[in-house]
Every structure is written in C-alpha cells, then in structure tokens.
C-alpha cells in the first residue's frame, strides 16, 4: 500500500456490504488509489469527524445525523442523497411464529426494535403510530444490526429492521413486508469532509455512488433510489 493515495470513507454500518463493493469498483478505475472504510453507526461516525477523525467522505443513514456535520461547518460540499431505505419485519428462517403483518407484533411474541433515540427506532415509532399498533418489545436495541442479530440467532420471534438488512442477512432471516412501512423512509446522504486533502477523489467517489454502477450495487442490496 506504500506510495498509494488512500481515500478514507466513513459510512453507516448498513452500507458495509454495498460500499465495500463500490470501493473495489473505484479502486479498479483509479490506479494507485486505495479506499479505506470505517463502518459504524451514523452518530458515531459524525461524532468522530467532529473530534478530528481523518475522514475524506461521510455517508450517513439519515439526513438528521448529517445535518449535525453541516451545522458544524465540517461538510466540504452540500450533502447529496444517494439511496433510501424502509422498514421490514424480520423473522427467523421458517417464520416459526407465523408473523404476517405489523398487527401480529402486538401479541405476546418476543419482539425486538430499535430504541427511539436511534434513527431506525424513530422510524419504528412513526410506523407504529401510523398503524395504530401498540408494540411492547422485550428489548430496545441501540442499533438496527443489534435487532437483526437478535432475530438471526432466533432469540426474538420478530424484529423491525431495514429492507437491506433482511437482504444482507441471507437465508438466516425472512422478511415480512407490511404496507405501513411507507410512512417512514430513511434517506441516505453523502458528503465530502471540509479540508480533506483528497477533495477531487472524494467528488469522483460521490459520482460513482450516484452513477449507474453504484446505484446497481445499492439496488441489488435492496436499497431504493433516493427520492
């Protein structure tokens, strides 16, 4: 890796698989450039950049989080949306509890959701309110991946996660679509970080994400296009 330029991308955890693929694509088209990723919860990433983490680009899982970066004047250019995501019910393979819709989650099943303080939890609250369903979860997780983990290990009978998480989990979980999900759509923005020495490369990466190859990878993973 010596002598190479490294483009450092901080991306929301839910983008792990897709961005790694896009990164390989970018390295293929940019000789001598290596893309290094740091995947974490969006809030963590923004907090790290605020504390001086050496990021060239930040891609977050919702616009509210990204606004904290722009408010600090740390975004080098206006953030641009590149994908959106919706909630889906995840159940263990084979759907042992026979969940068919959001209303089933109000029973005495072990349901796991995100805590209201994190983006997917906020979305969950909105969806439940819209559907008039009173959820009594056994756990309010701090991130969507923790919810997914509870379902993949079979501990929980059902959990509310993103569509893309269901896809990423492969055969370990099944997704149960429900109409009320449309009430809460998360939009993913990306922005270069102010003062990055690789502003040009960063712009090219944003272009790749928003162009055909990037969008195809995102779509394959279950993301919807940005609105």
């Amino acid at each position, binding site marked *: 890796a010596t002598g190479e330029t490294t483009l450092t991308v901080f991306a929301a955890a839910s983008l792990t698989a897709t961005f790694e693929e896009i990164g390989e694509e970018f390295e293929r088209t940019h000789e001598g450039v290596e893309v290094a990723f740091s995947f974490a*919860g969006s809030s963590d990433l923004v907090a790290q950049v605020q504390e001086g983490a050496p990021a060239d680009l930040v891609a977050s899982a919702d616009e509210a989080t990204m606004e904290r970066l722009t408010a600090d004047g740390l975004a080098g250019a206006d953030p641009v949306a590149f994908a959106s995501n919706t909630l889906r019910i995840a159940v263990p393979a084979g759907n042992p509890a026979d969940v068919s819709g959001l209303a089933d989650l109000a029973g005495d099943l072990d349901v796991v959701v995100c805590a209201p*303080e994190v983006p997917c939890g906020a979305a969950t609250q909105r969806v439940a309110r819209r559907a008039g369903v009173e959820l009594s979860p056994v*756990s309010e997780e701090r991130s969507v991946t923790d919810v997914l983990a509870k379902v993949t290990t079979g501990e929980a009978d059902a959990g509310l996660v993103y569509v893309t998480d269901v896809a990423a989990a492969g055969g370990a979980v099944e997704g149960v679509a429900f109409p009320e999900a449309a009430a809460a759509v998360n939009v993913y923005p990306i922005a270069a970080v102010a003062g990055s020495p690789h502003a040009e490369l960063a712009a090219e990466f944003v272009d790749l994400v928003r162009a055909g190859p990037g969008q195809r990878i995102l779509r394959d993973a279950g993301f919807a296009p940005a609105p």
Partner: protein
Amino acid sequence: MSSSPGRVGVPAWIVVPAVAGAAFVLLPLVAIVLRTPWSRFLDLLLSPASADALALSLRTSATSTVLCVLLGVPMALVLARTSFRGQGVLRSLVLLPLVLPPVVGGIALLYTFGRRGLLGRTFEVLGVQVAFSTTAVVLAQTFVALPFLVVSLEGALRTAGQRYEVVAATLGASPTTVFCRVTLPLVLPGLVSGAVLAFARSLGEFGATITFAGSLQGVTRTLPLEIYVRRETDAPAAVALSLVLVVVAVLVIGLTRQGRTGP
C-alpha cells in the same frame, strides 16, 4: 514477630513514571468532569430512565458479585492448592473471558443459554426464559467478571503459601475448618480486592449484556447501556451519566478499601 518492624523507601525516580501513569488515568476523568452539564445534572440523574438504570446496575452487579464469590473462591482454591493433569490448560481456558471482546462473550452466551443454544432447550422445558430477562444481565456480568476474582484470589493464595494451613491441620482442623478459619481470613485482602474488581467489571459491563440480554428500561438496560443510547441523541446527558457511574465506582472502591484491616 518483631524481627523487622521497619520500612525501607522506594527509589525516588520511581515517582516520575508513577505520576505520569496517574496523570494518564486521571486526566480523562478531569476532562469528563469539565464537560459535564452541571446545570442539568440533577434533572438528568433523577429522570426515571436514569434512576431505573442505576438501580438495575447496582442490583445486578451485586448479584453477580455474589455469584462470582460463590463460584470463584472454590475455583481459585482448586487451581492454587491442588495439582492435576491438564490444570494449566484449564486455568488458561477459565481465564478466557478476560480476553474475549465482551461482544464475543455475549455471542457465546447466546449460543449456550439462548433459545437455540446448547442448554436452551433444557431451560425451555423447565419453563425458564433466560434471554431478555434480568437473569441474562446477571449471567453476562458473571461471565465477564468471574475470571477477575479467580485470578486475584489465586495469586493471593499462592503468595500466602501453605505454612499456616499446615499448622492448622496438625491442630486437628479439617480441610473445611482450615478453609474457613485460616485460608479465607489470611487471603481476605485478596478476596476483597477480587470481589471489588468483579463488582466493578460487572458495573461497567456493556458488550456482552447488549448482545445477550438486550436493552429494556428497568429490565435489562443497565447504566452503561443507558449511557450508550443517550449518547446518540444527547451527548452531554451521556457524559453526566458517565460521571454518576464514576462516582458510584469511586464510592464502592473507596468504601471497600476503608473496610480493610491494616495497611
């Protein structure tokens, strides 16, 4: 025995790295104190979520400390006072939770006590649900804290040696009497500091708990989990709660040290 009642000093230069080390640990604590939003401090502390989390943390940590003592003292004794084939390997394995990232520990506990785990079916038959219960929090804390107690107690036992135990035995004390009236009192400082370590580790436990027990206010959301959740939306609140944890910890460690006899 009065033959050497005195003290000899420590090398003077040793104070330099000692102060550097202390500063390295203390400065971050100072930083936290400086960042604490004092105006909102009481409100934050008295909010139901914080109060619930603090109460749950203290309760579960106390329980798991008791479990650690009940399981760990015998383990330390067997490791320090007997020898058998494979003892070295066993010791290494028993100390493993020390080195496992707590998240991995949580996964391992899930694979053991979870619904689909090794013992999950057994528990289900018994009608006990471990996952998502306060029991799970205690198990997670005990799992990560147990080796702390075993390690410090085994060290104390080896250093203390067996001379007094031998005398006690020839005075007619059965192994149980020797254990209760000689071994335990002699290593009491080691046991106390081991238990404090275990309590402290339980109090700070985060990764295994969130993986194995989940996070529900009043049931499984201990103070560290509460701090983590708050951090996403309200960083100053998280800092304030961290300070509470710091204060509780200082009190525990301080009180225990007070109770110790002698130097």
